[in-house]
């Protein structure tokens, strides 16, 4: 067996982390993307820039600040401790929080593009056909933005699978709790276990290629609003 129990544990943990992160990002990212796509407020620029920050910042920078904020001396950490929740650093919850922030632009931007492409007209049509704004969102916007949701989910999931710096900074390296595949590969290489590193790295490579293949193959000229 080329993969041992700790490798499988890392894969399972990575899968759990990416799934949960993607789910949270879809819930949180949809209203943010909707707002960014439609608002005329001056806050659009600053909010858009903050959401896009993880695209350019080194993951270690994000991880560093999260560590400070979520740690026992940080303002979020102190709040969670005061609420009796303890601190989330070096825990799975901490990883989820870090991943949500780190992968945010990969979910928000495809959704924002999808919402912008729909335009005002379908919503106006729906309103003249008695649909409330929420009804229009569910029955018109969501189906029309479906390709955007698919892209956002794939990118959000894949990008979370591929993170390393943030995880290491705020999650550390605790087996079955915070040791994800990318960290596990790092450990193998450090320990000179090249064969095991090969297996895991190769699996990541194949997985990433397949995800991107699915994404680029499905992007045929869809969604024509007539």
């Amino acid at each position, binding site marked *: 067996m080329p993969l041992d129990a700790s490798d499988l544990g890392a894969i399972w943990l990575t899968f759990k982390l990416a799934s949960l992160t993607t789910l949270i990002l879809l819930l949180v990212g949809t209203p943010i993307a909707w707002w960014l796509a439609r608002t005329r407020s001056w806050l659009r620029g600053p909010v858009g820039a903050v959401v896009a920050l993880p695209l350019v910042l080194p993951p270690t920078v994000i991880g560093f600040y999260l560590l400070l904020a979520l740690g026992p001396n940080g303002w979020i950490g102190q709040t969670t401790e005061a609420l009796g929740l303890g601190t989330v650093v070096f825990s799975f919850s901490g990883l989820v929080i870090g991943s949500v922030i780190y992968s945010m632009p990969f979910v928000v931007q495809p959704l924002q593009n999808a919402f912008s492409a729909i335009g005002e*007209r*379908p919503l*106006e*049509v*729906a*309103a*003249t*056909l*008695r*649909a*409330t*704004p929420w*009804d229009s969102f569910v*029955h*018109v916007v969501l*189906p*029309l933005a*479906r390709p955007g949701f698919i892209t956002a989910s794939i990118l959000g999931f894949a990008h979370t699978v591929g993170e390393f710096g943030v995880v290491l900074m705020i999650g550390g390296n605790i087996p079955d709790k915070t040791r994800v595949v990318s960290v596990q590969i790092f450990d193998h290489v450090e320990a000179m276990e090249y064969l095991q590193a090969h297996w895991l790295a190769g699996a990541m490579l194949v997985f990433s290629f397949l995800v991107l293949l699915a994404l680029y193959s499905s992007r045929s000229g869809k*969604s*024509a*609003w*007539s």
Partner: protein
Amino acid sequence: MIHARLKVARDDFELDVDLQLPGRGISALFGHSGSGKTTCLRCLAGLERAPEAYIEVNGQIWQDSRRGHFLAPHLRPIGYVFQEPSLFPHLSVHGNLTFGWRRIAPQARKVSLDQACALLGIEHLLERKPATLSGGEAQRVGIARALLSSPQLLLMDEPLAALDGPRKREILPYLERLHDELEIPLVYVSHAQDEVARLADHLVLLEQGKVQASGPIAATLARLDLPLAQGDDAGVIIEGRVSSYEPGYQLLGLQLPGSDLELRLAHEPLALGTALRLKVQARDVSLSLAQEAHSSILNRLPVRVSGHRPADNSAHVLVSLDADGSVLLARITRYSADQLGLHSGQQLVAQIKSVALLG
């Protein structure tokens, strides 16, 4: 009764109108692009919120800016037809048609799916996706979809403007059927004079955000002081009833309203009493002092000159004529006017070279 007082001021555009439209029939908002007609329609629908507005339809107040009252568009019992069909691409024709229908209370549904489909001739399209429809078919579906939300007011924003000539001719008869068979008032935005002449009962002329004229179509088209009378298409509308038919010559006689005068045109037979709308172009009417017995011109009516005015180019004169209660317009050369000694009250004979049936 529709009452809309609207004030909109934007950087490049100002709208200030007070519209009183009849509670039945088709009211046309007519004007050049940029005259504010679409903005009026969007304010009626609530798709735009005019900063200063009072909108009352059939006794319900939809907007009253002084009290801060604004009824959201989805709460207004309207049907709206956009310039482009704007069908939902993710739904079938059936899904599009029933979108509004499913969102109103069953007891409020006045139009059934079958009725709407029959009225617009789209029964055979129900399972299709919008992307597979022609422009004309898609627009008919759009109109049926609006009808199926059982509106108390139908609003149409240049529903034919995006279509080519044949597609327009395909849809116009359906719009006429709506007019004849439905009791719903319709506000129709257009910049095409032929559509307006064919469909409208009431005409509002908009120019740079102001109402230039508003009144019954026949009287408004015949007004010499409006730019309508200046155009090449200038002419009048006459609502006549079939009063005779000569099978030998296949000539249909149409009685002018409230008069014994008759206009004749070559046409297949129609039932006596059928109401028809005719257009008589100003350039097709010539004037003479006496009845000329020998002429190929079919229609020669005794008329009285009720007004005249120089046309935009100074070579022509526009003359309005009273033909026993019906108004005609004639566009004649200034030379001819001088030869006739044209003056108000003068008795003349109008020779009408052609009469167009508008359906």
